[in-house]
């Protein structure tokens, strides 16, 4: 009987705390603790969701990669994604630019650069090619250290 009451209290608490959340414009990401609670993000459920996220190894998803040429005729690329984890995820990326023969263009700017993606939020980064010769690119990522 006690167990049953405890379960009912737990379930009730989740609905009480999570009851006020209303969906908003997807372009605005409101962080946990700022917005109203959801069932996934509630003072009672948060530790379980956090543990699940960690166990499931949740990370970033790439949602969109688009490229264009700027006014100087140089190629630029924007990578957009979403961090599914419940903690800030830092990673590094390096863009290698390729010419029309598929050869890598040597450039000082081809180095590992860091991105910090906030928990359960969208992120994006942009890169600019070293010259007009660049027609394609490859992007590598790795875990950020230190």
């Amino acid at each position: 009987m006690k167990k049953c009451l405890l379960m009912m209290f737990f379930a009730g608490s989740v609905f009480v705390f999570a009851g006020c959340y209303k969906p908003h414009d997807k372009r605005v990401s409101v962080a946990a603790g700022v917005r109203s609670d959801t069932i996934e993000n509630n003072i009672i459920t948060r530790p379980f969701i956090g543990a699940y996220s960690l166990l499931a190894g949740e990370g970033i998803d790439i949602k969109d990669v688009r490229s264009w040429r700027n006014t100087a005729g140089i190629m630029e690329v924007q990578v957009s994604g979403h961090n599914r984890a419940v903690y800030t995820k830092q990673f590094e990326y390096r863009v290698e630019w390729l010419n029309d023969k598929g050869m890598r263009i040597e450039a000082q700017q081809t180095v590992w650069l860091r991105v910090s993606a906030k928990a359960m939020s969208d992120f994006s980064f942009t890169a600019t090619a070293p010259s007009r010769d660049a027609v394609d690119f490859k992007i590598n990522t790795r875990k950020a250290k230190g």
Partner: protein
Amino acid sequence: MKKLTLLFIAMTFAVGCEKVTKIDTTNDAGKQVMALDYRDFDQAASEMIQSLLSSGVLARQDGGKYVLTTGVITNDTMQRIDTDLLSAKIEEDISNSGQVVMTSAVGGKDSNRDSMVNDLRDVRDSAKGDEFKQDTMPSKGTLIAPDLSLSGKIYQNNLRYDKKNQQVEYYFQLKITDLKSGLRFWQKEVLIGKRGSNKTVAW
């Protein structure tokens, strides 16, 4: 004698075992240091170059190329830094972009200039000038003046973070100025911040 020989052999092996590794500068996953290292210069230069090329200010409307010189980049940090570590990377990439030509005739510091440009003209104007075939000597009025100048500074700010840790902020600030009009065409700041033990020295 036998003991001495053994000691000598042991010492030789000990010296031979000192481990020295070459840094994999392409995929370096080494620990961060409080001072500025090559990775910080790589990052700052990369962000500067990309901002500059993305801005479009180097693309001349008439299709020609701007002539660029590097002015003074001040080292306002507690470290002994050669600012060429930053400017050389930027100069290399923006030259290779095909949008600008660097000049070695004038520059903010000796390493930006090639002293032979002036030395050869001094020879031309001296008595030794007659020793050279005249059509191989540079004529007067042949040097091209720069259109743009790259200048800026690297600034360091040390803060106490808590009892045990310090925070060091490095600001890389660069700008491009049109030398005829004095107008600033572009500027960018890159901040690199580090936190670590007070025991670590940031200079």
